[in-house]
């Protein structure tokens, strides 16, 4: 049995709201495996985004430990954590956050360019990724010239172009109709899930729950369900 891709121990996160301290996550212990698609579901405000942010190294837990592929990421010095994210993590943001002034392929190539790869070479790899996503013909277009769905595929390409070992994705289907949502999920399963890669998807879209390999339900900052399918009550 191989070690888990992500391992959280007693992860707790507080936020300061004025005088009050609110605890958003209460001692989360999770092991997440590579090679499958893990859904993080729960009602609005249950702490999904907070948890995924902590698991991918962009939000410090108040307490607890997070290991990503064996590395205790919050034990790293700041600049090493940044470098760790650059090498190991692919992000798919809900709002895509593409850079409007550069074309689609360059946008998708950003992680490689940031790693120091030559721009032309990085773009080539991005275009290769576009082929898998069926948007190779859009490579030279600016984000504003693409449809929302195409922009999302560019964002997916950007998350995968540098072959990260962990892919995180916040609400990929929130803005899509049921059919498009399923298509994107199929696509993600096809390109993002791999033997040595963990893929975590935050969603509260019940139309796609059947596509998960594992579902974790969060409620008030605690994991209340962990299984292949949703619990009956939902």
């Amino acid at each position, binding site marked *: 049995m191989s070690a888990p891709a992500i391992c959280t121990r007693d992860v707790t996160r507080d936020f300061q709201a004025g005088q009050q301290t609110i605890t958003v996550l209460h001692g989360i212990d999770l092991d997440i495996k590579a090679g499958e698609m893990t859904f993080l579901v729960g009602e609005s405000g249950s702490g999904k985004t907070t948890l995924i942010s902590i698991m991918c190294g*962009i939000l410090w837990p108040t307490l607890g430990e997070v290991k990503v592929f064996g590395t205790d990421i919050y034990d790293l010095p700041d600049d090493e954590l940044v470098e760790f994210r650059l090498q190991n993590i692919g992000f798919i943001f809900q709002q895509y956050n593409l850079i409007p002034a550069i074309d689609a392929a360059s946008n998708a190539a950003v992680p490689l360019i940031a790693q120091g790869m030559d721009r032309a070479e990085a773009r080539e790899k991005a275009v290769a990724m576009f082929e898998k996503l069926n948007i190779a013909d859009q490579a030279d277009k600016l984000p504003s010239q693409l449809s929302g769905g195409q922009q999302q595929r560019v964002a997916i390409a950007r998350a995968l172009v540098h072959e990260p070992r962990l892919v995180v994705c916040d609400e990929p289907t929130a803005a899509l109709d049921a059919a498009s949502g399923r298509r994107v999920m199929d696509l993600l399963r096809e390109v993002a899930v791999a033997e040595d890669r963990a893929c975590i998807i935050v969603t509260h879209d019940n139309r796609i729950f059947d596509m998960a390999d594992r579902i974790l339900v969060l409620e008030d900052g605690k994991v209340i369900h962990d299984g292949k399918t949703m619990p009956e009550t939902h």
Partner: protein
Amino acid sequence: MIWIAIRMLTGDPQKFFGLVFGIAFSTLLITQQLTIFVNLLNLGAAGVYNNGNGEVFVMDPASVTTDVTYPMPSTALDAVRSVEGVDWAVPQLRSAAAVRTAQGDLEQVVIVGVDDATLTGMPKRLVEGDKSDLRTPDTVMVDDVGATRMFPGLDPMGQVLELNDQRVVIGGITDTVPGFASTAVFYTTYSRALRYIPGTRNRMSLVIAQPVAGITPSQLVDKIEAETGLKGRTREEFTRDGIDFIIANTGIPFNFGITVALGFVVGVAIVGLTFSLFIRDNIKQFGALKAIGVTNRQIRKMVAAQAGLVGFIGYGFGVLATVGTMWAFSSNPFFKGFFVPWQVPLISLAAVIVILALTALLALRTVFNTEPAAVFR
């Protein structure tokens, strides 16, 4: 990443041009105003520049500049000539006078009487006529800027004027640096100047002297001062005196200081505001880059590249615009001989760098304060 930074900036043409405009405008204002400032101050030394020869100026200890002199007795000339190390020394008379033009207008002018024998004290170049024409009876020569002002639309040559009841004829036009007071300057011989200007026993304003080879002007100044009790100044010192007099006695430094400061403040305001708007518009993208794993060092370089590009283009346009305006005004006689001292573009460059550094630091603070976790919200 620098390429991405540049594209981010140029991809927003309105802000990009706003930034370039802000820098160009500041550069123009600072460069142009400093240039005019320096040149205006320089006018205070016009009387020195227009003295074609002689490295040492000797005067009464009370005298300050070529235009603020206390007359000396004529024996001062012999006293200077007898100092060892003086190659030659000539007298000069400088005084205000009123002339009446043929049209009957009364004008205030400056009379400069130069050495009869050698004509030393005349400007180096003439626009019209020949220096030796000064020996023709009743002839005076007028400076070019004064000539265009006194005789608009007329040929100054041959114009007859009345100078303290005596008839004078314009027989030449000198090529000179206009003076600060912007009165016309009439050149004549020393002996005739004595006649034109009624006065007291002591009439000599300056003695202009030249050291023999092997003695520096300042050594000669020391000797003359020690032996004659008069005040001596080297050409350089006397130039400086003229400039200092303007600084001490006019509001010019203050007024120009205000405009230059304004150029700086306007630059900071336009550039600072536009740049922070630009950063704010792109904060999501910067946040995404930070999450993906772009280091603060790389972001610093990106912002520096953006500021650098704006500075480079804006400064270039600003300097071009300055040269353009100077060129456009060059036909105005007031601006005759104006030049851009090499220090001025460097000063405005320094101002541009400070403006952009302030702006970039502010922008970086905004970016650094953005939590990468904000991208999921």
